[in-house]
């Protein structure tokens, strides 16, 4: 596809519209995106007791001071990732059983009553049922607890890859 292709131009034009949050409030909101597992925050290992303990431990094995610091930080970083992995695995997003198992068609009279007890417009009821059905589809697509915890843990794969690569590099260079 050449750069002058209309589709490509459209894509470029659209990309200009979606380059992340622009307002201060929006930026503040998106800056908290990584708070789920905290692995995107820069850790401060150097001031921790574990770090000093590990540096002492590794130093006794003939590694240089630089290598000791690198290995200790690598090991603590890897532990941090694996702890977050365990936490994510053990606390998946809970299944909303009510939403998942509800019979939407059978709920139409309830919607009707909710919207207007004196007799609502059929269009409103249909829209509410469609909205409820769409939420139910989303909930069902996520699957059961095992599917959810697998999907959540899957998001941490890249952190594991980086964590073990850092540790392995530090040990082999040392």
């Amino acid at each position, binding site marked *: 596809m050449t750069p002058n292709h209309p589709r490509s131009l459209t894509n470029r034009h659209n990309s200009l519209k979606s380059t992340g949050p622009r307002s201060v409030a929006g930026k503040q909101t998106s800056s908290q995106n990584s708070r789920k597992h905290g692995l995107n925050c820069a850790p401060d290992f150097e001031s921790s*007791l*574990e770090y*000093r*303990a*590990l540096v*002492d*431990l*590794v130093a*006794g*094995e*003939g590694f240089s001071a630089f290598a000791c610091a690198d*290995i200790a930080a690598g*090991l603590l970083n*890897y*532990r941090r990732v*694996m*702890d977050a992995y*365990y936490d994510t*695995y*053990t606390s998946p997003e809970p299944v909303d*059983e009510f939403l*998942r*198992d509800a*019979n939407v068609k*059978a709920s139409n009279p309830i919607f009707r009553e909710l919207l207007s007890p004196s007799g609502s417009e059929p269009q409103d009821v249909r829209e509410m049922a469609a909205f409820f059905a769409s939420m139910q589809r989303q909930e*069902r697509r996520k*699957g*059961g607890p*095992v*599917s959810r*915890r*697998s*999907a959540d*843990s*899957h998001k941490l*794969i890249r952190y*594991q*890859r980086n964590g*073990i*690569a850092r*540790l*392995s590099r530090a*040990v*082999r260079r*040392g």
Partner: protein
Amino acid sequence: MLYNVYFGIYVDVAMPVEDKSKSLLPFLSSPKLLPNESEADFQSGLQSLLSELDNPSSLAVALVSQLNECLWWIKRHTVDKELLLHEAMARLLSKGGSYSATYDNRKVSKALEHYLNGRADKDEAEWIDEILAESKLTLSDLRVRAFKDAARHIKMVDDLIHRQHQTIRHLQRSIDSIDYKSRLIKRMDLELAALESKQPAKGALTFDAEPS
């Protein structure tokens, strides 16, 4: 020689391998297990891995305990693959036949779990057979369909298992490198000792050879 490791942990270079692994416990090898998992199994796996190493250093022990944790994760994820299939099978059964009013009937799920494990009582087995007949499915058909349904999540679990394999490979390389380094240091020490032992002999010769 004792290394003072904080939190009151002491690691003695000459201590047995089992003790070395225990001395690292608080922040390196403390297993985070699920409620139905046995710590004894976890520890026995760790000890069998450690027994394959010849006088490992404390860092090697720390890395081996990470490796053991990877193996444990592989076990967990392998069980998850089967659970994903069961989840999908129960969902398909609930949707079929006269149970279509509910999407994921807990009762169906529980009975199917017992049925597949061979622990179902007569009523449960008959009930599952009845739903299978209503849905016009055999157990193997149901499994195939469930596999298709759960393919996306099974692929994710396969990725997780693959990641653990890759991690194990990294850890093995690191352990090998530590082992090689310690052998190299030992060899250099021996060569140095040999040179030193030759040195006084030479000195003695020159001293003797000096004319009086």
